[in-house]
């Protein structure tokens, strides 16, 4: 075990993946010698050479197109998109190409080796274009897996699993926690399962569900609720597609209430999908409407960053409203 922040855990996972499998490559804007603008790929070029860890020209559609080609030839590219806000030039290569590669060819070809890493989310005074949480654009695309870790231990295990999973996987990293989140991380190689939610705290009154950086916020809200005598079951979804319907359903059947929280805007956010599924699987168990605590339906603001965010206070209030419905 050693104490690592989230960036170090990711760097460590990439290091292990490259060391164990010569088919693994890391590339993207500033990823090479510089080690990425957040330094997630530090020292990888020195260790594995310029042919396996390198800078690309500044073209997101080119980066993912290139990665698709490499993956279709049996390599395992890990492509970095510097900020999730800049993933959209690559949308076609992700949605129309990576996601459909296996299906459209009848499995003659696939890009299962592809992993896309990208820092997402607010809280770093990034305004409109360094703050977005675009996960729901991708959960609506069959063929992709979408994974978001909450802390260094989770990040390392989930990233190694994503790299080795034989499906194109988008791995969104909560950049607000890159240096803020630290914890004990095993130095050895390990994987955490994809498609499996993690019950962080058991409870009886309400299920509180989130992912990524939102888990830290929810932990605070849940602690506040506990002081009021409300017992919350806290769940980190971890993989958004395919998501663990069973674990969430079982929890809601026990508690009778559900709150889902994410930073992305309310309308079209992934909470809506979860709510629709859970009202089907848990209709007769529900004691209050499923609550969504999310970002507003605005672009991500700069000056009103705090007001926009689904913070612990908004979640605390929503928990109380749900329980006293």
């Amino acid at each position, binding site marked *: 075990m050693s104490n690592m922040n989230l960036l170090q855990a990711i760097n460590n996972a990439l290091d292990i993946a490259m060391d164990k499998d010569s088919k693994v490559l890391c590339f993207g804007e500033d990823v090479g010698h510089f080690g990425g603008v957040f330094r997630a790929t530090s020292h990888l070029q020195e260790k594995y050479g310029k042919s396996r860890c390198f800078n690309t020209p500044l*073209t997101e559609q080119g980066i*993912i197109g290139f990665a698709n*080609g490499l993956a279709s030839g*049996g390599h395992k590219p890990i492509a970095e998109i510097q900020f999730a806000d800049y993933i959209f030039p690559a949308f076609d*290569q992700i949605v129309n*190409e990576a996601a459909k590669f296996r299906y459209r060819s*009848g499995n*003659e070809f696939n890009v299962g080796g592809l992993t896309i890493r990208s820092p997402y989310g607010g809280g770093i005074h990034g305004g409109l274009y360094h703050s977005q949480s675009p996960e729901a654009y991708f959960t609506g695309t069959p063929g992709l897996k979408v994974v978001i870790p909450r802390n260094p231990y989770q990040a390392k295990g989930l990233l190694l699993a994503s790299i080795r999973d034989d499906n194109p996987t988008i791995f969104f990293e909560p950049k607000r926690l890159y240096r803020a989140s630290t914890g004990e991380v095993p130095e050895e190689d390990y994987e955490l399962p994809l498609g499996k939610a993690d019950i962080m705290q058991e409870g009886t009154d309400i299920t509180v569900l989130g992912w990524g950086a939102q888990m830290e916020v929810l932990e605070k809200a849940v602690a506040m609720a506990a002081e009021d005598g409300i017992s919350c079951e806290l769940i980190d979804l971890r993989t958004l597609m395919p998501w663990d*319907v069973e674990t969430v359903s079982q929890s809601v059947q026990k508690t009778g209430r559900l709150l889902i929280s994410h930073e992305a805007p309310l309308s079209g956010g992934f909470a809506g999908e979860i709510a629709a599924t859970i009202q089907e699987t848990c209709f007769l168990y529900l004691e209050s409407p499923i609550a969504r605590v999310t970002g507003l339906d605005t672009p991500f603001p700069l000056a009103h960053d705090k007001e926009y965010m689904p913070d612990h206070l908004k979640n605390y209030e929503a928990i109380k409203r749900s329980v006293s419905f």
Partner: protein
Amino acid sequence: MATSKQSAKQSEAPVVHNPVFIDGSDLTTPTLKILRQDGSIYEGAELPDIDKELALKIYDTFQFIRALDERMIAAQRQGRISFYMTQIGEEAADIGSTAALAHDDMIMAQYREQGALAFRGFPLDQFMHQLFSNEKDLGKGRQMPIHYGSSELNYMTISSPLGTQLPQAVGYAYGYKLEEKDNCVICYFGEGAASEGDFHAAINMAGVFKVPAIFFCRNNGYAISTPSSEQFAGDGIAPRAVAYGLKAIRVDGNDVLAVLKATQEARKLAVEHNQPVLIEAMTYRLGAHSTSDDPSGYRSKKEEEKWREKDPVLRFKHWLIQQGWWSEEQDAEVADAKRKAVMAAMKEAEKVPAPHIDDLITDVYDTPPKHLQDQLDALKAHIRKYPDAYPKTAGRIDHE
């Protein structure tokens, strides 16, 4: 030539003290022509590496594609298949270039390159299974007609979005370079697709990463109805490649010997020197864009006739006859045999049932996740209830 001029410009370009604007006239792109329409060779032209066997294989593919295209466009009009795209008039471009490659060089095509696949040996019945989206289609009946693909023949499955194969070709070629393989990727696209962002991303990355790739532009004059004069203002596609650090060559795309020669030379540059090359083949789409298109709304019969006189298949036939390798009698005989074979294969493929309903959810992921299995189970239960509404699948559904 272009490259040495390019590097000279970088190192020896003069400094000026009053504004000097450069323009397209600073770079002229010649067109390679080897074969005249009457089958004779231009004086001084150097022939490609071609023997009787290769020449006849190319011509056999020409004849096969003509038979397939003519029959399948009729089949679409009869309502037997939903859609079709011919490549009439452009056969020399894709078939001539594929003939210059090693059998295991990856082909990443756009969609109008069935000739390249035929040259690789894709069986007639496989063409038909794809066109009829039946259960023997390698693509499991999932894509519209003409979206062929074969892992065994190194022909990447076609994807409808234009130009997406271009950066993928760079990545695939980078893989060859990493593994130190003596292979290259050929990537086909049209002059219309060269307006897509993916084209510019790809050509730039190919130049930067020095990958063994050949970008083959079929400049056929039209993107559906839009003429190339409304597609770009510069001198075609080839000069763009020079700006991105590639070598470029323009060829008469209806001259199969010129296409073959240019691609053989390009392959050497790509494989031996990791020098990416762009080939611009000047040709003409004699048919409609697809069976959903009618060219009479945007171009004249006169223009079409002018290009029909430059038919690449006839041109090559004249040369073969002059070589003493072919005759009009053989020609008529083989054309007739191909037409009959296509008709027979079509009738067979029509009888093959649609893919099983279970294949609706396979290959979305490596293994179907639970939610997909649940959706399939619900769908099957529904089909069992209303079998008449789903005749393709209801008869074969399991009755567990």
